[in-house]
């Protein structure tokens, strides 16, 4: 989540280069040095290593001396690895269902929470709550709530004659994870939409009221266009976040039953930390990262195109 927010902040920053700054020479470096050294040590060096490791064949057991460069072998192997493609497919399904659902429900909730309501501040806090609680507490709770025999969720669904097996069933495990993701993310979306709605052009609504426009017309012509950048931002951050979804899977399903919830980030984790194939895991990470980056840029560009046409 945090990563893309930074990009959003950075693009804006570039357009507002400050004025009245005088040259400070090496003193400026001194100010940056503590942070920069840490970023080099803990981010840049690992990043360079992951790129290098992606071209090696190495398992932990053989020690550092056992590293052998094998060119693009890992990438060839990825292309032929059914496990990889299965994981990519699951990830795409997970992203394609959970992200739009979260955004649409978040939009509805954001609009509703923008109206005068009894106890509005409390309501906003309630919907946001799942977003700030740690994944283990949440995961353990849902694991028990979705217990197929006696969990509360099935006790309620029983009234409608449905008894999904949730995490015990290879059909229901992924939907169960999606339900949890949507529950966790809707409040965040509604909050972001809420802050965008409060910046919406008030005069336009007043003019529309004078013209006697319907609520739907006002939404379509004024609200939605003014929310478009926010929507794209949320799509991008949620796509990035969802494609990395890991904590709940590691905790609850461990990729199962079978490989029913082995999404790409879990597949990478398994390859690296369970089978100790670090070279191959690095290659998977790199390929996935490039894929998500392309997906993100496409979403971003699509929005820019729209904005220019308007």
């Amino acid at each position: 989540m945090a990563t893309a927010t930074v990009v959003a902040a950075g693009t804006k920053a570039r357009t507002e280069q400050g004025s009245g700054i005088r040259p400070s020479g090496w003193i400026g470096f001194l100010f940056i040095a503590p942070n920069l050294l840490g970023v080099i040590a803990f981010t840049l060096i690992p990043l360079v290593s992951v790129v290098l490791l992606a071209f090696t064949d190495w398992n932990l057991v053989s020690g550092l001396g056992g590293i052998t460069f094998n060119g693009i072998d890992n990438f060839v192997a990825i292309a032929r690895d059914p496990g990889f493609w299965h994981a990519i497919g699951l990830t795409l399904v997970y992203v394609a269902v959970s992200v739009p659902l979260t955004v649409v429900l978040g939009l509805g909730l954001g609009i509703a929470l923008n109206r005068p309501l009894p106890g509005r501040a409390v309501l906003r806090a309630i919907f946001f709550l799942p977003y700030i609680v740690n994944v283990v507490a949440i995961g353990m709770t849902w694991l028990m709530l979705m217990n197929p025999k006696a969990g509360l969720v099935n006790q309620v669904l029983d009234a409608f004659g449905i008894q999904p097996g949730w995490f015990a069933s290879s059909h229901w495990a992924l939907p169960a994870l999606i339900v949890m993701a949507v529950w966790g993310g809707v409040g965040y979306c509604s909050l972001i939409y809420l802050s965008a709605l409060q910046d919406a052009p008030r005069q336009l609504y007043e003019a529309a009221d004078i013209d006697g426009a319907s609520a739907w017309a006002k939404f379509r012509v004024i609200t939605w266009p003014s929310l478009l950048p926010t929507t794209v931002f949320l799509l991008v951050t949620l796509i990035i976040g969802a494609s990395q979804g890991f904590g709940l899977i590691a905790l609850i399903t461990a990729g199962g039953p079978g490989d029913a919830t082995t999404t790409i980030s879990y597949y990478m984790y398994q390859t690296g930390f369970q089978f100790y194939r670090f070279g191959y895991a690095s290659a998977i990470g790199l390929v996935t990262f490039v894929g998500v980056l392309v997906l993100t840029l496409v979403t971003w560009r699509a929005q820019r195109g729209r904005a220019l046409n308007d």
Partner: protein
Amino acid sequence: MTDKYSKWLWGIPLWILAIAFLAPFAWMLSTSLKADVDAYKIPMQWIPDPFQWDNFSTVLTGATSVLPAFGRSVFVALLRVAGELLTATMAGYAFARMSFRGRDKLFLLYLATAIIPAQLLLVPRFIYFQKIGLYDTLWALILPGMFTVLGTFLMRQFFVSQPAEFAEAARMDGANEWQVFTRIYLPLATPVMSALGILAFVWSWNDYETPLVLISNPDRYTLPLSLTNFVDEQGQIAPGLTMAASVISIVPVLIVFVVLQRRFIAAMTHTGIK
């Protein structure tokens, strides 16, 4: 229809939805006070009978107490927050208000690293931390968290919006660059720093993935990892104890959230959109 009625017309469905949203938390709290045999009773029993207060004392003082892990989480979070605030304010200030060779290129590099997913870095960090002796220590969690690109961005965003005239006036009065920073701009940044501090605390407190990979000794588990103490080898969860530990793990974040709600929400929305 008057506004008064429409307020309730929208309010009631939203409150029903909110209660459904809260149900998992209510269940967590209720189960934390139940005997294990009552956890899966059909139909669900919301008010524990009898109240099993022992769950909390077992979780806090028993053989698998989460209290040491709680302490480690506090330690990690405090050092991370302090370190991040220190390095991020200095770097953010320099990127915004100072001028030196290569500044903008360096900033672009920062931008680029910001989109790297943390997971991609876990494999090399795992290996590298083993080599330099940080693996399986709390420093493996603390150090990377002290030097963040996100914090630097947030602080830069703030300092860019501050007028340069203050600095010029201070320099005329003979202040050096460090004094200009600490006496003029840093006090102005307190609200942004507290917002960043809150976010950094919550991220650190809730982090599960990094300790999962970089900590192996249960004696060094942070709180999220220790919540799995009450799951046996067959994967059977002890409901009462697990939920009591979960409630304990939520309390600090909940306090931060309730007490500093406005600032917290402002921080969330500002990292998001503005």
